[in-house]
């Protein structure tokens, strides 16, 4: 059963709210581009991948009406299926243009099904989608929190500076820094939980945050785990966006 946040977002998509579409694009665009580039390696360039990721999210906005919660599909799976379909359409279109060229028609599942070392592609993809949700939560907090508070969190947790250095930079005592950190942390917990709920269709997806050390009702001891998880996700997302940018500028 869908929660209120998800249904609210779906309603916005159904009402063709372009801002909702932009939110999707901002949050999941890089993940989709990375996935499409991986699938279409050697066959699609970055420009095509950008176009296809836009098409995927546009298709998602339009097909939201057909989503059936009873079938129990995850949000990430659904997104992936649409991306796959969009890429399939593109390859079909190209093959139609090249028909008679003597080249073997591409099987979308080839790259996906190919055995390889390391974690399976779908696990990587699921992790990337989850990280994108957390990143969206962090962005929400950046908008909502006091600038000084968020800067302290950023310097201390995301940039890894010591409490003493941060306190000195900001001209405040270490306990004040610590208090402001807790404030941002609490806000982060709430917002991440909301974002994960918005982009989750199944219970299992909802539990992802907890599984990754981002529980919404933690004990005091979980704080450092939470901060570590946030910092790790932030840096992984930085890497993803840097790769995306590097691809974009060739």
């Amino acid at each position, binding site marked *: 059963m869908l929660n209120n946040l998800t249904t*609210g977002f779906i309603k916005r998509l159904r009402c063709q709210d372009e*801002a909702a579409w932009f939110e999707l694009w901002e949050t999941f665009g890089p993940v989709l581009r990375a996935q499409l580039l991986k699938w279409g390696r050697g066959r699609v360039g970055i420009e095509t991948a950008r176009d296809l990721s836009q098409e995927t999210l546009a298709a998602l906005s339009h097909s939201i009406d057909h989503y059936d919660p009873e079938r129990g599909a995850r949000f990430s799976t659904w997104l992936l299926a649409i991306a796959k379909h969009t890429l399939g359409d593109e390859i079909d279109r190209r093959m139609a243009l090249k028909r008679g060229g003597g080249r073997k028609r591409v099987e979308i599942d080839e790259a996906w099904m190919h055995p390889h070392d390391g974690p399976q592609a779908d696990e990587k993809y699921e992790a990337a989608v989850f990280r994108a949700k957390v990143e969206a939560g962090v962005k929400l907090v*950046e908008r909502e929190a*006091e600038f000084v508070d968020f800067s302290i969190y950023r310097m201390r947790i995301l940039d890894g500076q010591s409490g003493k250095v941060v306190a000195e930079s900001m*001209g405040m005592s270490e306990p004040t820094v610590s208090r402001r950190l807790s404030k941002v942390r609490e806000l982060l917990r709430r917002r991440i939980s909301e974002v994960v709920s918005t982009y989750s269709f199944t219970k299992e997806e909802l539990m992802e945050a907890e599984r990754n050390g981002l529980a919404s009702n933690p004990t005091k001891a979980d704080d450092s785990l939470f901060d570590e998880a946030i910092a790790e996700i932030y840096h992984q997302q930085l890497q993803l966006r840097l790769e995306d940018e590097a691809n974009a500028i060739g």
Partner: protein
Amino acid sequence: MPFVTLIGVLLGAAVAILAIIYILVPVLKGLGWALTHIFRFVAGEIGDSLRIVGGIVTTIVFVPLVLFSVVIGRWSSASHFGGAIKDEMAVIAHRFYRIVIGHPARLLGLTALTEGIEQRVPDAFAKAPGSDKPSKRTGVFEGYNIVGSIKGGGSGAKLYVAEPDQMKLAAFARMGKTNVDQVIIKSFSLSDGSSLPQIVRESRALEAAKDMGLVLEHDLSATRFFYVMPFVPGEDLTKVTLRLHSIAGPTGLGVSQLLEGIGHIADLAHTLSRYHSGGLWHKDVKPDNIIISNGRAHLVDLGLVTPLRSAMTLTTHGTEYFRDPELVRLALKGVKVHEVDGAKFDIYGLGAVLYSVVENSFPAHGGLSQVTKRCPESLRWVIRRAMTDYDRRYNSMAEFLADVRAIQGATDPFALLPKDLPSFNGDPIPMPEYEDEPESMPHSPKNFGAKEVAAAPMKDVFAGASAGRTRPTLVVTDWLTGRYRVSGQTPAGGNVHRASSPEPRARGGRPTPMIGRPTAKEQRQHARQRVHSARERAHIRMNQRRYSNSPNAGVFVAVGLFALLGVVALGAMGIASYDWMSKKQSVRVHVDERGAAEALAQESAQRATYYAQRGKEISDEITEAVESRVEELKGENGDIALPDVFRALARAATVERSEDSKGVLLILNDLQEDADVETNLGIRKNLHHLNKQGIDFLGLGDHERDVDLLAGARATIGNGLPTDAETMSRLSRWVQTEHEEIDGIIWILWSNDGRTVEYQLVGTDENVLRLAQKTLEAEEQR
């Protein structure tokens, strides 16, 4: 003996095996490779030859279509098929290149010599700057000697480098502009493919830009619009940043390079502060638009400059990574420019530029981008504060500049901490001085934006942002002249300048009386003259617009090929008829063909007459509307500036209420794309019946006004549903308070079961809504 023989046989066998393995196999392999190579060559040659034949056949098929379209006056179709022929010709040329150079080079192992050349050469041609001299169609620029050209950006304009003659130099000197050796002429010509909307967009902030000394001259004729700016030779900031980082090494900028970079940023902040206090917003701050000349940073490209108080809807123009994502979000919501503080988007852009200078990379993660290279903590703070959320950002460019100057002036910039920055401590912000600017620049900034556009009320889009801030109170000291003084706390940013302007303006942007101003009669006469010339120009444009879709190269190729085919066909017919004549056989005329040709000619004539009449009607409507709008503006301001005529033109093209109209309703259709044909037909039929009842509609076209209205309505609805009484009352209020031109809204959407179409009516005019409701119900029963 047998043993020796055996040994010999074994040795022979071994040698044979070795020979097979090491000689025959490689030889065969080589042979196979050579054969494959040759086969590939032959197959490639044959394949490409066949493609050329295919291309020629396709071209021949397209030629009659082009000619037929030309004959019946369908210029768009002719142009379309012409384009298809052009594509085919490009493919033929490419395949020809492969046959003659590509495949033979590969056969001879010279692939590296020609690799990618077929892509690089067309790319180089595509990227080449235009002709150094303007074409005949563009015309000459009187008073300027064109000495070169620059590759234009995305606006479709042509950029020429020119040297002004003595007359122009004298004129510039009178404006206080000396040392103008070279200028850039940005030209938009309808004959060169520029469009009216582009021209209107570029001209939007021109008057204000000219007042600020950014533009030296501008001119508008029937077919061309251009403006002249001082030419700043130098290299762009991207190149300068690369140079600084190549000197500094991979760990980041050293003190001297950092100070050089910060100096450029301070120059830009100063320039942008001038823009903002002048009521303008640059909107495209990025390293490629920043030229470093004689150690100073100059901001170029006025293509997107917008008045801060413009009543237009926000657009998403700008450059990724340097454009605030919030701008896109707001633009998609349909927010107007005057409802936001555009200066804050420039602050974001400059923060992103500062990031790129420090990091030698794009801020790919927006406001969350991490500075990984050596950088003072205080500068990191400045970047974050500039690129953070809209509400948390610096309130003005002056605040940003004060922080940058503090770092610039520090003995050791790396020792400066965020707590030492003026903005951190809430220190008073000194306003930037403009003494070093050209004499033409007013020392006390004026609100040029108010002159540009009628002042619009600031809507509190960001309720959170305004909380806690005190707005200044204006106390009118002289009701007769409109003179006032400012009391209370002044907000940061452009408002400070406006509030402290020594030449106060009355509310609504009406200018105070000036000595030497023309009399009302003279102004009326000038206005009439301008309207007259505008009308003439509109007539000319309307006549020309019909031919703006001029035949392209493909059309000429098609006509040429057809002529060739015609000659061949006539030759063949001549020979055949000679044989027939010799046999004294009669020739039949196909009466049907003649009839079809006559019908075609008749249809073309009717079509031409219709379009000529319709063109005249549209032209008349536009000129009338322009005239009335100009009169209206004249009543408001007493003077008409060129951009006002443009705005009048833009407004004139909207739907006006007809004389027998009973009301105007906005159509908000949520089905459009997912409705089937039958449903769409049903909706159209219902609207047709409403129209027959005397109800006019808005929101059906893609005109700017329609788009604005729909965006506004959707923004008002937000996440609301028609069943929600609050949503409907909000929509009704929106109609009542903001859009008097409409009487209500018909909101078309699926019913809850997703099978039937619902028409929700909301608005202010009960009679119109009742009439619409009745008509729709009657149609439903029928």
